[in-house]
């Protein structure tokens, strides 16, 4: 059912999606870079990585809005000698190893379900869903005019054991946990 709905949604949204793989929108190019940047200003507990050379995995949950932009953003990049790998999946379970999980708009309805799954271990969750940060996510993109801005829920991050750089915090809009349910349920 959900799938149907998703598929339906996908269909309704197909015209832009069709174009996405070939020429990702400017917005997602910026967001892809932002994702990469987030990796640089956030530190994970050492336990996250099995060993010294374990890559940093970026997971895209749901429909991929980036196209090739994300791959381009992380190509040939390394953070603390760790390679960057992008994983895509519609299933939360597939993305358990990821250190950062971008939750696509396609998962909008499942957010409440997804988040508890992800927040069980130190994962930086990012989404463009409005109010995502106030509702259990760590970072949420939002549009400020033509610019892409983001909100940070520092409480969530701390709870997850993520160390956010002050530089990042200075740039992001700091939000608090209002209520885990509420809006989502509404």
């Amino acid at each position: 059912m959900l799938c149907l709905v998703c598929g339906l949604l996908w269909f309704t949204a197909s015209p832009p999606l069709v174009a996405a793989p070939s020429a990702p929108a400017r917005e997602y190019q910026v967001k892809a870079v932002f994702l990469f940047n987030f990796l640089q200003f956030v530190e994970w507990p050492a336990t996250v990585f099995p060993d010294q050379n374990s890559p940093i995995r970026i997971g895209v949950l749901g429909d991929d809005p980036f196209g090739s932009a994300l791959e381009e953003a992380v190509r040939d990049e390394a953070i603390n000698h760790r390679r960057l790998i992008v994983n895509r999946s519609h299933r939360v379970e597939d993305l358990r190893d990821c250190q950062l999980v971008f939750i696509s708009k396609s998962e909008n309805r499942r957010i409440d379900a997804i988040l508890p799954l992800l927040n069980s271990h130190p994962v930086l969750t990012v989404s463009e869903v409005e109010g995502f940060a106030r509702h259990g996510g760590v970072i949420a993109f939002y549009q400020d005019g033509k610019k892409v801005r983001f909100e940070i829920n520092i409480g969530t991050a701390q709870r997850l054991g993520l160390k956010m750089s002050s530089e990042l915090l200075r740039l992001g809009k700091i939000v608090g946990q209002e209520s885990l349910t509420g809006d989502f349920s509404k």
Partner: protein
Amino acid sequence: MSRHQDLPIRKKLSRVILLTCTIVLLMACASLAAYEVFDFRRAIARDSTVLAEILGKNTRAALAFEDDVAAQEMLNALQAEPHVVSAGLYNREGGLFVHYIRSQTSITLPAHPEGDGHRFENGELLVFRPVVLRGKRIGTIYLQVDLAVINSRLWLFGAIAGIILIIALLVALVLSHRLQRPITDPLLALADTAQVIAQRKDYSVRAIKQGNDEIGTLTDAFNAMVTGIQERESALHAEIAERKLAEHRVQAQLARLDQLHQITRATGERQDLRSIFQVVVRSLEDHLPVDFCCMCLYDEAGHTLTVTSVGVNSESLAAELALTENSTIPIDQNGLSRCVRGELVYEPRIADVYFPFPQRLARGGLNALVAAPLLIESKVFGVLIAARRQSASFSSGECEFLKQLSEHVALAAHQAQLYGALQQAYDDLRQSQQTILQQERLRALGQMASGIAHDINNAISPVTLYTESLLDTEPNLSPRARDYLTTIQHAMEDVAQTVSRMREFYRQREPQLSLLPVDLNRLVDQVLNLTRVRWSDMPLQNGVVIELQTELAQALPSILGIESEIREALTNLIFNAVDAMPNGGTLTLRTRINANSTQVQVEIIDTGIGMNDDTRRRCLEPFFTTKGERGTGLGLAMVYGTLQRHGAEIEIDSTLGRGTTMRLLFPVPSATPATPVVISSAPATSRLRLLIIDDDPLIIRSLSNALESEGHDVCAASGGQAGIDAFIKAQNTNLLFDIVITDLGMPYVDGRKVSAAIKAASPRTPVILLTGWGERMTAEGDIPPHVDQVLSKPPKLRELRSSFVHLLNGAPPRSSSPGTDNPLAP
């Protein structure tokens, strides 16, 4: 620079010190400032780099998330840093992300970042630093830093340095002023001393030595130099004084030389002693000058001096001293005697000399005397006396001058004498030149006359021969005829005499003339008769009356002479007297004897026009005439010659317009010789056979006729060759000629050749040479060889007869016998 050199040494030293201080300080300040600038720039570069690094770090997140607001905020924080003029943040692609510009400035940032690092440009520092995120460059930070602060720091630094400099200089000034004194004070003292010496010319001043350094040495050297100058100056002064004295002497000497020169020139222009002396005396009086001056001539025989010239100014004194001109001074045993021995005498104080002449001068108030001798060829002929009132007033130069002057005067006098002698010699020379000229004229005339005489002698030969022949051989002649013939004979004799005398002009007659006693009274009568036509008849025709007076002395002694010559002379003088009275007058002839009977005088006096002096002087010269074309100029010259031959003199008294007296003075012989016997007719020889050779037919004919009428047998030959032929022919036929008479001058074969041929054929045959040149031949001793007798033309029968007798009697004379009355053929 020159101004610097003109500065006082103190200021110079101060300047040097201050300049050194200034330079050193400035160099120190400059190096400090340079170091300051360098250090500041390094510091600001470092600071700015650090700032850029910090900014990069702070903005790298904003850059990474393209958060321009946050980045801008960061950059705006630079407002706290006033030096930062602008700042810029460039993204990875090089585009300007955000920028910061300090307010109130208009700056454009570079569009793209440059290479990392910093550079200084236009007083600003530009810094480019990379913005790194996790070891990865994500952009560039740019800073533009204003360096104005360095300038303000430099200003501050400069102000501090300037203050330090001024203080340092003030200190240096004070110090230099104090410290330079040990050097400058002695130097200035030395300079002051030098100036004092230079200004006052006082070389006795010395500089004071203040130490033993170089300046002390300099002071010593200066003092030594001044000492040297002082010595040299005093020596120089002495020398200058000496030279001035010498120059003064030279000037005086030159003045005297000039005077000497002037006197010498003045005397050189004069030729007589008196005016030379006058010049000298005047010049000495005026220019030497002297109070008394005179010139004296020395009379050696009388041992006196004769004053000849006294100066104009000395005349009164001379009169007082009895030393006027022409007065004599006896030479006493004083200076004058030394002077006449040739010494210059100088008596500085004549009053002290006790001799008459100096005392005489001393009485006239004169005290110093110089007597200079005038010497010609080391013989004193005069004395120059100069005297002054002031005693000892003649300097040695003046004495020398007077000595030289006397030498010059003597020389001039000598020259004047020489000039006189020269003039005399010149006059004599001119005289003898004129005599020679006259003789030369006469010689030429004589030669001409000789030719004329020859021709005349030939021409008158027939007349003489016929007249004599007629008179001798014709007893039946009427008395009238005889009288006429006698007159003709006399006239012919006169002609022959005249002709022979014509030649006398060129040749001195031998002194031994055959002089015969002559009665001058009778001769005067004769001449008056002969010339009657001239002094009586001819003037009367023109209505002119000449009155004749004769004053003949009684018992006049005879003189020795040649009657015809004296007659001729008297005739000449009478003619002259008549010519001098064209308007009539009185002609007086006077004979008289002088008081002691040694001279007989004949005077021919006219009352005619007279002669001026010039004419009177020249009237005896040959060819001098006042009668123009009418006169030959020979009359009086012949008279003079005649008189000279007779040892007589002539006196001419003449007054122009009053008349002339010609006075002939004949010496009276001491004893009148006996009158020689005149052979009037030679004893007739026997009939002779004669050969006559001549080229002149008239002579042949007249001679043949005359000799034939004597009774001789005469054969005539015309020409020399014909004569020789005739002689040879006669010899061959044994009809020898007794005597041959041949002419001398004939064409082709002359008398000499004829006689030579005849003597060759018959050496014993006498030859008589008959010649118109006979006078000259006999006179010159030119009787040709082979000739036994020379007879002159015109031939006279008396001579021929006499010759025949002598030649045939075997005692042939070589010349005419003294018995003939031909006085010109000795």
